[in-house]
């Protein structure tokens, strides 16, 4: 066995580098985010499915949804699975979603009035095995509930995206990836607070204007990610 073979092994981790993309038999597959530079920082080279991703924001209209939209669009076109929205704060607007390449026939919008029902519905969707992704605005901040959701995502091989308030950033979380999202001039600024197999990163800027101009069915992911500086 030469050094290269040794270094290629999945169970050998070199400092300063993320573990190699997981193999097929791993419970966690990954899904390109549509932003090259972000993929490079995510464990497995993309959004890890079969786990939770937490997107933390302060206030509305800051770009959290558009961060995951390219991946959702591609998923909707490659898998016959639901993309469930559990208790979204507003109407997910069909014209914009379709323009971003999302196949609307895969969309499932779930309205749950009471908080207990909301968390129940998120768990059902994650666990069912029929949702490729579950976008959720959980009511509970209880760590036990989050762990249940994480287990449900593993069971159902679903990508659970929890949109939560930045207030919860200090709380421990079972999510595989936690991101903080803030608006900036041309798009958003993303900071990875936690990722499996890697350290937190500093803020970096994602350019939406560029990313969304390309339909999700295109083979090459578009979009630029420029760590440490703002575009334009």
């Amino acid at each position, binding site marked *: 066995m030469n050094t290269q073979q040794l270094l290629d092994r999945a169970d050998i981790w070199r400092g300063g580098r993320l573990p190699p993309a997981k193999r097929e038999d791993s419970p966690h597959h990954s899904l390109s985010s549509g932003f090259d530079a972000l993929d490079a920082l995510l464990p497995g080279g993309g959004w890890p499915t079969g786990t939770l991703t937490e997107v933390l924001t302060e*206030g*509305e*209209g*800051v*770009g*959290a*949804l*558009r961060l995951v*939209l390219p991946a959702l669009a591609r998923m909707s076109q490659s898998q*016959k*699975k*639901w993309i469930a929205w559990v208790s*979204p*704060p*507003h*109407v*997910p*607007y*069909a*014209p*914009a*979603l*379709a*323009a*971003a390449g999302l*196949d*609307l*026939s*895969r*969309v*499932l*919008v*779930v*309205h*749950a*009035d009471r908080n207990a*029902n909301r968390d*129940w*519905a998120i768990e*059902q*969707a994650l666990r*069912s*095995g*029929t*949702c490729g992704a579950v976008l959720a605005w959980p009511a509970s901040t209880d760590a036990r509930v989050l762990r249940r959701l994480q287990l449900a995502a593993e069971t159902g091989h679903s990508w659970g995206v929890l949109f939560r308030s930045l207030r919860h950033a200090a709380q421990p979380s079972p999510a595989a990836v936690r991101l903080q999202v*803030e*608006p*900036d*001039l041309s798009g*958003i600024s993303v900071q990875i607070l936690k990722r499996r197999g890697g350290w937190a990163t500093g803020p970096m800027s994602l350019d939406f204007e560029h990313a969304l101009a390309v339909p999700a069915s295109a083979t090459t992911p578009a979009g630029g990610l420029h760590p440490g500086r703002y575009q334009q």
Partner: protein
Amino acid sequence: MGQPAALAAGGTGISYYARETRLEHQALTGLADWAGQFTPAITLLPGDGLLLEVSGSLRLFGGARALYRRLRDGIHELGYTGLLSMAPTPRGATWLARAGRSLLLHDQPALTRALMELPLSVLDLKAAQHKAFHRLGITTLGECQRLPREGLTQRLGTELLTHLDQAFGLKADPREYFVPSPRFDHRLELPSPVSNREALAFAANRLLAELTGALAARRAGTRQLQFELEHEDREPGRFCMNLVRASREAAHLRHLLYTRLETQPVPAAVTAVRLRADFETLAEVHASLFEAPEEMADTRLIERLRARLGETAVHGLALVPGHRPERAFRYCAPGDASAQAGPAGPVMTRRPVWLLAAARPLPIRNDTPYFDGPLRYGAGERIESGWWDDNPVLRDYFVARNPRGACLWIYREIVQPRRWFLHGFFA
């Protein structure tokens, strides 16, 4: 013969009910519907039992012993305690059950031996006949069979003699078969009023088991289940479970029922539960079960969510051609393939990913619309549409940013009072 051909569940064992003929008939009809999954040839023995002709079903269900066990366990699961005998002749099986025997007899010699020991009471003798046999010291069918034929004919009459011959397999025993109803409608009267949800679920589950049996018998599924919870002196509570796709999968239906029952108000003790359901041919669903298993699972999630959250809680999204922003989409049935279809009207250059269900008026400070700070905005997009109906839209839309960097979709009315509104978020 030589093959087990008949089976009877003795009615004396239906201990769940008071011995009231009407109720027993209901229970027997329910059982008959359920038993239809094992054989189409079912005979009701009024107030007393069921007769199933199973010789044609043995192979399908893995032999007599396996079928016997399935029937026994199934009856138990439905909450009945029945006596179950399987024997080569229908009358033989009936008499065994009536005499309190639960036996599985494979051939005629075994049946003959068993019948010989049965008391005469299985014969429905008149008092005088009974006395006559008693005087002769005859108490079992075996002793009776040993009497000379002519004397027996005199004492029993030809009808009872025929019955004896049929039991022993000497004469044919044709039966009329139970005709299942075209729609499932069963009512289960509870032995005592129930207000506890678990007891209610148990009772409802019995009806559900009868339903899935009836569905299996018809190779059918159902798409709508209507439950009625009857009370002593108030209107019955009703609820309905709708399925996206017809199903007869017992575990799924039970799961839906329990989920639904959790939210069903039960204001008073329930005295009876009624379940009505339509039958729907399952042929296509069955085919797709093998072709696209994930499609099947799809609808099950929707049905589960609806059972708990309500029928209107789960939607799909579709585009609607038109200029008015709030009418450029609609909620539709999940998975509607036409969601994406049709021209989206004008090419919408910039539309927000979130639309507010109701546009929110924006305050004005220093002549500028304000949302967490003064809003900066560029060139507008004029939308004038809907003048032909009651909801005309006359607005100038702008993409705006506030000092925090949030990206908003706002509009200003073209006509007085020219108010500003927030209509969406680009995020």
